[in-house]
């Protein structure tokens, strides 16, 4: 974890993992930090991203716009968001339904399914769980 902004790592499988702490409010600073770390770890290439969104309690409009921006899309091949309750599910749904990022996004309730989807080749049309 870095200054309450979430922990960003990359596994040997090439998947970037972002873990948000409980009570996380995602604003511009937090999303920019995530994007910078993802760029560093992926060396500027498009990589799959697994987000632990269970601790997220809000996501600002500006943060949603950055998350769906062409700049972020240039770093992300697909994104799996693991949600843990109605609030994080609501935020996740809003993110991919309303902000509409151009890369495939799916919401999951468990990490195994999320990882399996990220690792599966060829799949990736945007859609809900």
């Amino acid at each position: 974890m870095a200054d309450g902004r979430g922990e960003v790592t990359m596994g040997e499988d090439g998947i970037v993992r972002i873990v948000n702490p409980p009570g996380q409010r995602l604003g511009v600073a937090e999303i920019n930090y995530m994007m910078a770390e993802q760029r560093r770890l992926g060396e500027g290439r498009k990589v799959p991203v697994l987000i632990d969104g269970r601790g997220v309690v809000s996501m600002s409009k500006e943060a949603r716009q950055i998350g769906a921006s062409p700049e972020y899309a240039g770093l992300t091949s697909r994104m799996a968001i693991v949600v843990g309750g109605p609030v994080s599910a609501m935020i996740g749904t809003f993110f991919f339904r309303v902000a509409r990022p151009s890369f495939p996004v799916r919401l999951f309730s468990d990490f195994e399914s999320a990882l399996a989807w990220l690792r599966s080749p060829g799949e990736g049309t945007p859609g809900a769980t």
Partner: protein
Amino acid sequence: MSATPGIDVVLDLLTRIASGEEGARADPPGQDPVIDALVVGLTMLAEELDDERRRRTAAEALLDDERDAYARSPGLLCSIDAATLSIVKCNDTLARAVGVAAAELVGRPVAGLFRESDQEPAQRVLRAAAAGSPNAIPELHLRGATGDLRVTTAFSRTDAPSPRLRVVWTDVTQERVLEGHLLQAQKMQAVGRLSGGVAHDFNNILAIILASVSLLRESAGQGGAAGSLGDADLGDIEQAARRGADLTGQLLAFSRQHVAQPKRLELGGLVRDVDRMLRRLIPEGIAVSIVVPDASLFVTADPTQITQVLINLVVNARDAVSERGRILIEVDRVDLDEAYASKHFDVVPGHYALVSVSDDGSGMSADVLAQAFEPFFTTKSPGEGTGLGLSVCYGIVRQAGGHILLYSEPGQGTAVKVYLPLAEQDPAPQPSVAKAPVAAPAREVVLLVEDEAALRKLTARLLERAGYEVVGAANGLEALELMSRRASVDIVITDVVMPKLGGRALVDQLFRDGKTRAALYVSGYTANSIAHHGVLAEGVHFLAKPFTADQLLRAVRAALGGE
């Protein structure tokens, strides 16, 4: 108290969003995850609504700007149904230009906007454009509220909301008029240069003829030989040469190379003074009215030349009227503003005196009007006119810094308007012009510089017979070389344009060296070397070629006496 903890936060937030409150937000109460999710979701929804509202406001403002720009555009804008070629909408500029309210134009066939002869070509062009294969678009004429408008056409095709042509017509009426004026001015300038050059060469020839006639006549008078020519023959030759000289003089006037001697003159007074002379030119059946203002209108111009303009215009009016009709000569003050100047080529805004000569005669067609100022263009029968009358007027008025306009309608009559810039109010001191008598010279010495050998020889003989001692030179350098061996002469008579060293430089050098008391320039034209735009400076003596013996001797005396 609400049944579900936190539901009141949800309801309150919903109410605020529904009432359109900008920035409606709430924090999740934290008592029930579902309620919290609802609050978070509603908050995000409110943010999206706010954003959408801002976008819509910005889009509406942009649309307003576009509507305003459309309405106020100087272009004549119109949308046309691609299938029916009827007007779907148009801007106010177009509506004003054609004198019909924009709302009334909607639904009308677009072809109706054009003058009759252009309706078919306009439809052809627009149909081709609607079909996606636009042809070259000719300039067309819209039927304007105050006359036809010449327009260029540009368009784009759109299929939303229905197939339409967006058309932009640009009014180029004024542009084309000014282009026409410019072309006309360029043509007149070219013709002026040509006729000026021809006149110059002819003047040398005529000068030789006239000088020869003078000598032959003198020789015959002294019992010498004039060949088989009698006095009547010499008279005929002289008269023919003088007619030739009149012609070259008119050509020079047209080409603005005539030497003008402008004075401050009161235009109304001048018109009144020449009234009697003008009336003598006009038969009784033609009524002549002269309207001159009480206030004085001073201009700076050569009175002889302005009189010439009046005579030429009145004679033209007389010939147009034929036997019965009216001629009106008016003098007035007019102020020409920027708007007027922008519509007329080479017109400077300012205060002008206007002399207009109008008649109710036969008038002129547009074709005749377009050529009216060209030298030798005439509609008169052979022998009735040289075709130089209006050309001379044009040259004189332009030389005086004014401009001349012609309005005419076949069968209605013609009005010629001459605008001369008003002079300053305070009268400038006028140099007195005294006519010097041809006094017998007291063996004064003349340096005669002329590159035309025959003319030099004849001029020298005229001067020698009048008692002068003449030393001749073919050009300026030869003259300086000759003067380096002489103390001085009384007067230098020199051509202006000569090879090697021109007259002006020669005279300046001789005056600097104290080698002459006086100078007289003789030339077929001024070439601006001794005169600025054909206007002589005070104290400069000039004799136009061709000249008679008497004119030469008078000019020499004037130059010597005016030192």
